[in-house]
């Protein structure tokens, strides 16, 4: 996939212009897609009819999530519905999600709902970036769920990273054997993971205005089947540009 720097700069500039430092989910995914990072296709629907049109295009079943700059934890707001397989379900989900969000946070600015393609469950990993005040862009990697939240089992590298750096940061975490296949599970697609780590690192390095990036979860399939970011968050730095 070709890299579209101009598109990325536009998305970042437009958010800043609107006084937002947090990108909306579909914007974050557009940035990643423009950089060649595989992401679950996600589009913003302003009303139920548009949601249906997008769902048809993406093919059922789909996932729907609230789109609001004021709601970070979408599940807590009752703002996520999965496995929607018909026009009726999509219409109902749209109304419910918006109603739930209003109840959760009455003053929230609600832009609509994002509709996302459904992907089969896979191993979950987390890939993130941080701008360190001294070292600049760094990439973080960990396994999803308890591995990061409870065990703090993560590794870091300075960006940009070469394939060797990416491989090392994968091997460095304690949960590494899980990726190599335990209890009869197949080995994960390490090559695809290395590719995303490198791409994300390069993106953070070239756009220092991106203060934080969080691809969580990234679905990691078995060897040869790739990896894809299911959810993504991008936060811009205050005052910084680029």
């Amino acid at each position, binding site marked *: 996939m070709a890299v579209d720097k101009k598109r990325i700069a536009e998305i970042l500039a437009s958010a800043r212009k609107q006084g937002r430092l947090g990108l909306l989910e579909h914007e974050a995914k557009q940035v990643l897609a423009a950089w060649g990072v595989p992401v679950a296709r996600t589009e913003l629907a302003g009303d139920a009819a548009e949601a249906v049109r997008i769902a048809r295009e993406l093919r059922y079943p789909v996932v729907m999530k609230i789109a609001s700059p004021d709601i970070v934890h979408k599940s807590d707001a009752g703002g996520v519905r999965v496995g929607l397989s018909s026009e009726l379900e999509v219409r109902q989900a749209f109304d419910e999600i918006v109603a739930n969000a209003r109840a959760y946070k009455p003053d929230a600015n609600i832009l609509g709902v994002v509709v996302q393609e459904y992907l089969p469950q896979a191993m979950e990993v987390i890939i993130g970036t*941080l701008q*360190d*005040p*001294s*070292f*600049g862009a*760094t990439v*973080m990697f960990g396994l999803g769920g308890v591995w990061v939240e409870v065990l703090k089992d*993560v*590794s*870091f*590298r*300075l960006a940009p*990273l070469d394939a*060797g*750096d990416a491989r*090392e*940061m994968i091997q*460095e975490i304690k949960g590494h054997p899980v990726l190599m296949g335990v209890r009869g599970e197949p080995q994960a697609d390490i090559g695809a993971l290395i590719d995303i780590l490198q791409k994300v690192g390069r993106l953070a390095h070239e756009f220092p205005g991106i203060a934080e990036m969080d691809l969580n979860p990234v679905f990691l399939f078995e060897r040869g089947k790739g990896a894809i970011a299911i959810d993504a968050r991008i936060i811009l730095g205050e005052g910084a540009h680029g």
Partner: protein
Amino acid sequence: MVEDGIDAIFEPKSVMLIGASRATKNEVVLPSIFFRSLAHNMLRFFKGKIYVIDLSGRLGAGGKSPKLPKKLDLAVLVLPPNLALKHLRKLVGGRVKAVVVISGGYGREQLERLARVTVRRGIRVLGPNATPGVLNTSNGLCATIERGTMPKRGGVAVISQGEGLGAAMLDWACFHGISISKFASVGDKVDIDEADLIDYLSRDRGARVICIYMEETVRGGRKFFNAVREAAKRKPVVALSRNMAKVTVEQAPPWRGEILDAVLRQAGAVRARDFEEFFDAAIALAKQPPMQGNRVAVLSNAFGPAVLAAEALQREGLTLAKLSDETTKQIKKKYPDADGGNLICMTAAAKADCYEFVLKHVLDDPGVDGAMVINMLKSCLLEPDEVKVVADVAKKFSNKPVVDVPMGGEDYVLVSDVLKDTDIPTYSLPERGARALRALYLYGQIKKKVEM
């Protein structure tokens, strides 16, 4: 010698010391004690010219300030900021190439003034707050406030960010006979920073290994990263970093410590996990070649210590080497009582000839990357002097490291004294020996990576 402004810090021919040996009414006492220690150290150890400028007029040329030459290499100051700034302007400007400001307490505005009278006029500065100071064992430069603390001369170069730890390191080095080439505390970095020192030491032939203790992160992150990476291509860099995020009371940014840790790893530093390992690894790396693989042979004249060694090696990610049938056969032929299994246990009766023969054949085995030699004196027939053969044999294998473990207390003291002037590092416990071998293995891996 390296052609560099920093050279005047470590290799001065002439040094002026500025301070006050007695506190006047309104001053705190501590700087005067420190200044007396500095003057004492320099007069006792330094081989070049010394000019003591004692503002309280007691030390130096019969209570008077000495006549200063027009040009000098270095000025070392132990004075509160305002006095230091005043005398820097008066005495130092235009006269010296470099300044070490040991005392701290500089505010933002005072730092700026310090830079104005020194750095902007082409004078290199270490500090302020470069406590305990600077040291070079090859010319006796002992510009520190730790009285009489002069380690013996050798290949370990040390950079410290922390004042307290810096002093502890010097003390540790002196007490344990660790051979130091140079030592410097970076302090508040108005000019010279960690990266400058790493870069300088990487080109300094006297330094066989560079140790850096980090208490905080660095300002110019990428400059630091590149300096470590370039240095690691030339010689081992050992780093001990405090995990700031976890211990500081003040709110450190999330992951700050982990990021510094990752940077050190990525740049090719061997990371020590604690203070003891910091120097254990440094000594091994200064004396022994990097280990090419992770297969370690354990030779011992007692079984128990060898078992502890095997377990420790496994914990450190190393494995016990499996000897070839040929090697085992040869050992068995000459010493039928020796156990030539995975742990090579010679009997309690083993003497120098046995150690010599077995170690030679073990290191000759292509399945062995390095060796830990354990020599007990208690309950065994071995005499301390006999352990010299370990050094003699190891010398013939330039790419396989050997560490020696005379396990225990008194045995350790006796044997390490015999080996202290050889290239064989000694450790009092198998666990410490295993960690030293791990460092040699890690550096072997780093070298392979940077040479790719």
